[in-house]
C-alpha cells in the first residue's frame, strides 16, 4: 500500500499545478479587474457580459448549437435504427465506416467543406454544369450549421445505435406476436427504449457545438462570432484576460447545466459508452 503513495505522487503534484491551479487562475481573473490602483475584486466582467451585444452572441451560439443538434437527431436517428436493424448484411463494417469520420481531425473535415462550398468550388461547378443556380452559403449561418452537423453527426448516431442494438429482440417479437404493427412496435418499444441513447447523443452533439470556435471561424468567416470565438478574441487579440476568463466560466457553467439537465433524463445504461 505504501507503493501507492510514492508512485502516484508525481502525478498528484502535476495535477495540482497543471489542472487545478490553471482553473483557479481562470476564476481569479474572472472576478477581478486591473485598475491603476492595482487588482481588485469585481464582478464587472460578468456585468459586461450582460450587455446586449454579448447576450446576443450567447443566444446565437445556443441557437446554432440547438439547430445543429436537432438536425443531427433527425438525420441520425433513422441511421441508427437502420444500422441496428435485423435486415442488414455486413453490419459490422458499416458501423466501423460510421465510426471512422469521428477519428478525422475536425480541422481537416471543416477545411474540406471550405473547398467544396467556395464560389468556384466543386459544388457550384457541378450545379452550373447541370444548369442549376449557384449556392453561396460559405461564410453564413448555414455553412456553420452544415459544418457542425457534418462534424458531430456520428456523435449522435453511435450512442443511439448502441442502445438500440441492446434492445432485447424477443420483446419486439412478443409485441408482433400479440398483433402490433410495425408502427406500434416503434412507438411502444423501440422509441422509449432508445431514449437514453438519444439523451447522450444530444449531449455529445450540443456541447462541442456550443464550444467550437474553429468551425465558425473557417466556415463563418473572420467576422463571425460565437461564444468560442469571443473567448479566443479576448486572449489572442483584445488581451482582456479578465473578460475572457469570465466568458470561460460562463461557458463551463453552461456545460455543467446542460449536463445536469441531460443526466436527469439519463438512465444508468445510457449511451452504452461509445466513447
Amino acid at each position: 500500500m505504501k507503493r501507492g503513495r510514492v508512485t502516484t505522487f508525481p502525478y498528484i503534484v502535476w495535477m495540482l499545478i497543471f489542472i487545478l491551479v490553471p482553473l483557479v487562475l481562470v476564476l481569479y481573473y474572472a472576478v477581478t479587474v486591473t485598475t491603476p490602483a492595482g487588482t481588485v475584486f469585481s464582478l464587472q466582467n460578468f456585468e459586461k457580459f450582460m450587455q446586449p451585444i454579448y447576450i446576443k452572441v450567447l443566444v446565437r451560439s445556443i441557437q446554432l448549437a440547438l439547430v445543429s443538434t436537432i438536425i443531427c437527431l433527425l438525420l441520425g436517428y433513422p441511421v441508427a435504427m437502420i444500422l441496428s436493424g435485423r435486415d442488414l448484411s455486413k453490419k459490422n463494417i458499416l458501423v466501423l465506416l460510421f465510426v471512422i469520420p469521428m477519428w478525422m481531425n475536425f480541422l481537416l473535415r471543416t477545411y474540406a467543406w471550405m473547398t467544396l462550398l467556395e464560389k468556384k468550388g466543386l459544388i457550384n461547378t457541378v450545379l452550373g454544369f447541370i444548369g442549376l443556380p449557384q449556392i453561396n452559403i460559405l461564410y453564413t449561418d448555414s455553412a456553420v450549421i452544415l459544418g457542425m452537423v457534418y462534424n458531430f453527426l456520428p456523435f449522435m448516431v453511435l450512442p443511439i445505435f448502441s442502445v438500440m442494438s441492446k434492445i432485447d429482440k424477443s420483446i419486439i417479437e412478443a409485441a408482433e406476436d400479440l398483433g402490433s404493427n410495425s408502427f406500434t412496435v416503434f412507438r411502444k418499444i423501440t422509441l422509449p427504449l432508445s431514449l437514453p441513447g438519444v439523451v447522450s447523443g444530444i449531449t455529445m452533439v450540443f456541447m462541442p457545438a456550443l464550444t467550437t470556435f474553429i468551425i465558425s471561424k473557417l466556415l463563418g468567416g473572420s467576422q463571425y462570432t460565437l461564444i468560442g470565438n469571443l473567448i479566443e478574441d479576448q486572449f489572442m487579440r483584445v488581451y482582456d484576460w479578465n473578460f475572457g476568463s469570465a466568458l470561460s466560466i460562463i461557458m463551463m457553467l453552461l456545460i455543467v447545466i446542460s449536463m445536469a439537465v441531460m443526466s436527469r433524463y439519463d438512465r444508468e445504461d445510457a449511451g452504452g459508452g461509445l466513447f
Partner: protein
Amino acid sequence: MTKVIKKLYLALVFMFLYAPVVILIVFSFNSSKSRANWAGFTLKWYLDLFKDKQIMSSLYYTIAVALLASLIATIMGTAAALGIHNMSRFKKSIIMNITYLPVLNPDIVTGISLMILFIFFKIKLGFVTLLLAHITFNVPYVILSVLPKLKQLNKHLEEAALDLGATPFYALRKVILPEIMPGVVTGFLLAFTLSLDDFIISFFTTGSGVSTLSITVYSMARLGINPKINALSTLMFITVLGLLLIINKRTSGNSIAKNTKEQKEMPNFYNPSSIEGEPLP
C-alpha cells in the same frame, strides 16, 4: 421496398460523410490549382511540402512533442495508476474526479487556462509550454487505459511473488508490468494519437516560432485554400486513421460495433452519468 429506401438513405448519409474528405484527397493529386477541374495526376503538392520550411519545422515539432509528451505521460500515468489502484475508495474518487476534468472540460477552456498559468508564472510560451500542455491532457487517457488492466490483475500474483522472496520492485517489474503491458501500450498509442491530432490546446499554449502541423493547416486555411494543405491533410488523415485503427483493434474484443475508440477500456468520456456511475473499486 422499405429495404431499398433504407439502403438508399444509408448510402446518402455515407456519401455526405465521406464525399468531402474523398474529394479533398483526390484533389491533392490534381495538377491544376483549381478545386473544381481535374487537370491530371501529379505529386507536385506533396513534393512542395518537403521543400516548405514552415511545414517541415511544424512536422518536426509535432512529432517531437507527440513522442515526448506521450512517453512522459505513459510513465507518469502508469505509475499513478499503480498507486491509484491501491488507494482507499475515498481518495481514489477524489483523484479520479480531478483526472476527468481535462477530459470533460471544453478544449478551449483547458487551452486558455494553461496559457494563463504559463504567462502568469512568466514561462515563455514555446516548445516547453506546448510539451507541458500535451503531457497534461495525455496523462488522464493513460491512467484510464491502465486502470482496467490493474482491475483484471489477480492480486495474489504479486503476493505470491513477494512470498517467494521478490523485492517489491522486482515483483513489479517481473509480475505486474508484464500483465498490464497491453493497457500501457494502448495508453501510449492513444496519447500519441491525441497529441498528433490536437489543435485547440496547442493553439493557445504555443509561442511564436513553434508551430504544429494542425496550427499550420489552420493558419494556411484562414488565408484561403491551397492544394498544399490538401496534400498535408491527406498525409495527416492517413497517419491518424492508421494509428486509431491499431488502437481500435487492440481495445476491441469480438464486435467492432460495441468497441469504438476508447469504449471498452474506458468509461464514457462524454457522458457524465456513466462517469459518475463508474464503479471505483
